[in-house]
């Protein structure tokens, strides 16, 4: 029987998984399969510092360069997993090879939703990969009039990057308030305020109907009121879909809604030896009463890559996933930070109650603190994260914030 551990997906979660497997004492054959040609690299800078107007820093992880030798790793970049057979315990690859395994960790991430009809028009991008970032950066360097579709975090960071270079930036958002699902209404408004005060033309409640182009290059985005927003660069940031199409028929349970891998609390994907980690996984979070969640965040990929590897190497002592979600986003020199989960019974905008300018809001569920968002309050946000981690009470959180 094979002893091999295969990690599918060579971004943050996949890299942490192979590192952790070795650290946890796994000495058997270890394979890392990655679809992109680039060695594992860090994605948060792609929509932030990488777009700045100076020499870009390659976002490769420092550990990437020597990881194959350091970890005695069978590293296969530019290779896609094409099938998983849970009965025979075999993984199929785009090279036509089949690899047998004892354990597999699936960390294939997610792909951006695209705009139908945009495939053959140049100047229209999503931002997920380094190659995407290179193309967007190059358009910004050429002075592109930038239009972002979707006022989410990625799109907002790109608008911010365009404004930083003095370029015009327009954001087109279908909902009346941006980010409502991520952070709630009042907080979405506070974030929208940052766009308006920095010269980005944020247009909410608009419906995009199509693209205009000339000679195969985008020239504008058309709206349902008949108007056209001129554009040289269009970035589409309207969410992502888990990369699990290759798992159909594998025996891994996929969520009907979005195709995410449905895991148990140890990140096991429903087949012996098969685990999932990162954007691709929907899992019950022990810290939030076992609520099923899928978390598209750096810290989640970091923690779950580590946890999935520990559990794959030592299933008899498998630990549950119990992390506090955390993300950050940098707009116009301001830092937005969110810890916990936004679905709540009550949201208190503490900064307003205290008459303070820098935004801070707390989220309550039952009698517990379950979330916190802040803008430019880096000293405080992690103190609330610890409270959430320790299942801290709402009363204590309010007292800590100085309100009652």
């Amino acid at each position: 029987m094979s002893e091999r551990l295969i990690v599918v997906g060579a971004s943050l979660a996949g890299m942490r998984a192979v590192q952790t497997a070795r650290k946890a004492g796994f000495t058997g054959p270890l394979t890392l399969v990655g679809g992109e040609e680039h060695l594992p690299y860090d994605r948060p800078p792609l929509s932030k510092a990488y777009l700045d107007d100076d020499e870009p820093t390659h976002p490769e992880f420092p550990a990437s360069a020597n990881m194959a030798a350091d970890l005695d790793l069978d590293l296969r970049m530019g290779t896609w997993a094409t099938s998983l057979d849970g009965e025979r315990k075999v993984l199929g690859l785009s090279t036509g090879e089949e690899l047998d395994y004892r354990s597999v960790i699936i960390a294939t991430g997610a792909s951006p939703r695209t705009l139908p009809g945009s495939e053959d028009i140049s100047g229209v991008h999503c931002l997920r990969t380094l190659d995407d970032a290179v193309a967007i950066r190059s358009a910004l360097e050429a002075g592109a009039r930038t239009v972002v579709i979707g006022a989410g975090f990625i799109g907002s960071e790109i608008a911010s990057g365009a404004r930083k270079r003095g370029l015009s930036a327009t954001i087109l958002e279908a909902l009346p308030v941006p980010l409502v699902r991520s952070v709630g209404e009042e907080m979405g408004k506070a974030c929208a305020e940052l766009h308006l005060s920095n010269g980005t033309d944020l247009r909410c409640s608009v419906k995009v109907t199509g693209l205009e182009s000339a000679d195969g290059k985008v020239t504008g985005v058309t709206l349902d009121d008949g108007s056209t927003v001129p554009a040289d660069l269009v970035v589409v940031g309207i969410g992502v879909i888990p990369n699990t199409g290759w798992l159909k028929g594998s025996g891994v349970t996929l969520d009907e809604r979005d195709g995410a891998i449905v895991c148990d609390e140890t990140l096991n994907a429903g087949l012996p030896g098969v685990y999932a980690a990162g954007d691709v996984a929907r899992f019950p979070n022990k810290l939030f009463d076992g609520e099923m969640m899928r978390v598209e965040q750096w810290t989640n990929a970091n923690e779950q890559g580590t946890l999935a590897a520990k559990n794959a190497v030592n299933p008899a002592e498998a630990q549950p996933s119990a992390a506090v979600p955390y993300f950050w986003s940098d707009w116009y020199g301001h830092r937005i930070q969110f810890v916990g989960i936004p679905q709540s019974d009550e949201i208190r905008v503490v900064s307003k109650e205290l008459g303070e300018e820098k935004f801070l809001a707390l989220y309550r569920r039952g009698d517990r603190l379950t979330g916190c968002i802040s803008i430019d309050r880096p000293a405080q946000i992690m103190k609330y994260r610890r409270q959430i981690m320790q299942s801290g009470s709402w009363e204590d959180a309010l007292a800590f914030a100085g309100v009652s």
Partner: protein
Amino acid sequence: MRIVVDHDKCTGLGMCEAEAPDLFEVQDDGSLVLLNETPSEDQRAAAEAAVESCPTEALSIVED
């Protein structure tokens, strides 16, 4: 064991403070203060967790 912060890389995201609040504290301006540069052996696990959790790889442990 000594903790080293690369202040050029650190942007004050605070993961280290969440992992090891006795060792790290982010300030109001986003800068990071090391509360204890030479933690004891029983703080090693927390220190290592902090190093590994840093999104900007700004932390390292040096064995003197």
